[in-house]
């Protein structure tokens, strides 16, 4: 009996702070919650950041550095994905949105409809690496047309590399002698920014001419073949690439760099037909075809209302920001490009 009574006492004591918390918050929040949503961001010294999971590590590092100098600011960096991030951003729920691609027209429209103005700042570059198993001796280089023939929407059902030869020739690839070896493909799923960028950079250019020729529909031009192993987890993708000697897959360049000994990067031929390996230099110079820019979008309303947001982006635009890009494993902008970003911010 006694221990039972003690148990009840403990439960009662534990309940008190929780009830107080609930009681207090009721009063505090009523005023600010209505004001917060209409004004598009909180003005309480909180910086709320969401968006791309690719950019999340960069902004996290910047946020830590900023937090160390400004202990009185609350800050949170989340990474649900670029598209989800813009939805929150255009609903006025976040101050800054990380993005692994420029904002889409319909997203920009949603922001405009909600009266959210923003400034776009390019902070770094990420490359897509097309990879195969280190044991694969047959494949050194491919052009975009060959990649289209291997994973584009028309390649559905190809289970050997050689099966893609005919299509590769049809779309004008230089690589029409692919080996007769099993083809297993692993890559990020459709929800991933890396998937979007891969499609945009590697598939769409060729797909657009196919749409004009009437071979595929416009919807198909924005997708890969559906029959490949997809995973949101980069580690699973690498396991898939390692799993077969003649595998094919694609990952972000940062991840390739971190796990370079487990994959063999396939060089990609540019417009003039020369093969370009993905390296820090070829990506920064724009030589390597499969690279994408990384951005942060800052709400102008937040800048005006919340001095912490202004201070945070000011900090981002110092060396701390560009250093974070490198620390997170991405490619830094060239000095001129970085200066252009800083100028764009200072002009706001």
């Amino acid at each position, binding site marked *: 009996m006694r221990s039972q009574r003690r148990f009840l006492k403990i439960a009662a004591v*534990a309940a008190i702070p929780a009830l107080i918390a609930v009681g207090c918050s009721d009063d505090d929040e009523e005023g600010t919650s209505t004001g917060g949503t209409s004004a598009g961001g909180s003005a309480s*010294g909180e910086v709320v950041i969401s968006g791309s999971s690719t950019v999340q590590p960069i902004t996290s590092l910047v946020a830590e550095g900023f937090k160390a100098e400004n202990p009185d600011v609350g800050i*949170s960096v989340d990474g649900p994905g670029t598209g989800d991030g813009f939805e929150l951003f255009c609903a006025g729920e976040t101050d800054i949105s990380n993005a692994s691609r420029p904002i889409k027209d319909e997203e920009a429209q949603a922001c405009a409809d909600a009266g959210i103005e923003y400034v776009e700042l390019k902070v770094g570059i990420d490359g897509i690496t097309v990879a195969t198993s280190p044991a694969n001796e047959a494949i050194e280089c491919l052009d975009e047309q060959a990649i289209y023939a291997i994973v584009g929407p028309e390649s559905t059902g190809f289970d050997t590399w050689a099966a893609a030869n005919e299509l590769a020739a049809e779309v004008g690839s230089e690589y029409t002698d692919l080996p007769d070896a099993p083809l297993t493909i692993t890559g990020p799923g459709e929800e991933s920014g890396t998937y979007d960028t891969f499609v945009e950079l590697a598939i769409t250019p060729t797909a657009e001419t196919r749409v004009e020729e009437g071979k595929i529909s416009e919807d198909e031009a924005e997708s890969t073949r559906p029959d490949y192993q997809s995973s949101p*987890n980069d580690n699973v993708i690498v396991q898939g690439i390692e799993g077969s000697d003649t595998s094919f897959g694609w990952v972000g360049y940062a991840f390739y760099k971190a796990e370079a000994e487990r994959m063999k990067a396939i060089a990609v031929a540019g417009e003039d037909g020369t093969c370009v390996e993905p390296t820090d230099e070829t990506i920064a110079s724009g030589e390597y075809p499969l690279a994408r820019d990384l951005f942060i979008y800052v709400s102008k309303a937040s800048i005006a209302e919340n001095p912490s947001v202004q201070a945070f982006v000011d900090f981002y635009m110092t060396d701390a920001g560009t250093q974070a890009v490198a620390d997170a494993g991405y490619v830094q902008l060239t000095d001129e490009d970085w200066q252009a970003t800083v100028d764009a911010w200072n002009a706001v």
Partner: protein
Amino acid sequence: MGLTTTKQTQQAVAARIQRGGTDWKGLLFQLSVLASLVVALVLLLVLLWTVFWDGIGTLTERGLDFLTSGTSGNPDTAGVWQALYGSFWIAVFVVVFAIPTGIAAAIHLEEYARDNWLNRLINTTIRNLAGVPSIVYGILGFTVFVEILDGITGGRSVIAGGFTMAVLVLPIVIITSAEALRAVPYAIREAGYGVGASQWEVIRHHVLPYALPGILTGTVLSIARALGEAAPLILVGAVTGFFASSKDASFTDELQGPFTTLPNIIYDWARQPQAGWPENTAAAIIVLLVVVLTANATAIVFRNRYDKKRHQ
């Protein structure tokens, strides 16, 4: 009677009937169940061993620092402090809201409710609710606690997460408590009524103490379940990146601010590409296992102590 065991008798009788032949079917069955046990155990040990092997380096190297550091973009300085704090509050919400409510509901269903169609329907519904995938509770939590009750929870906060988890484990608490109450022999209640006790007195002094060890087991399972869930909390808004609250933030500000929990931090770290994160992930898994096992062990100690006291 006392000279032969049941097993010896069974063997002697079987041998006589089967004329000394070997019971092949029986042997095969015994071997196959043993094999299943071995497979299950080996898989579990391989899992635990690989996690332990990957994570122990980080834990011994960083030691307390790993437990007291917050979220970070740098694997060398990232720690689980905020996740431990978040998980602690999830457990508090479950203990404070789900467990008393659940036990009370179970007492009503088992002791007071009449056996009619309505109560049978309620019983069936609760059983089905216990089997609803946790992600569905995440959607419920997002709609009710993040959106509608925004004023109380502060939106995507540990309060919203705690309430969501409390609702998620409620059916489990009710079912396990009801099972424990049902296991109390009816003779105990009859004896109570026989000496003139009221229904309240019988429940309070006889049924509940008898059922308490079983109820405690159920509550431990529910806390362990709440500590291990990640999916619903992603919907409720557990932060997957970095966060820190202002140094001026009050206690309530913190409860209403961004949060994460151990399973969420494991989910986040597991998908980070850079070197160092896989080891951190394994170390965080070890921390989560230790926390859950500690919670379980505490309740077992409680239960055993209570069991002993009652029998004295």
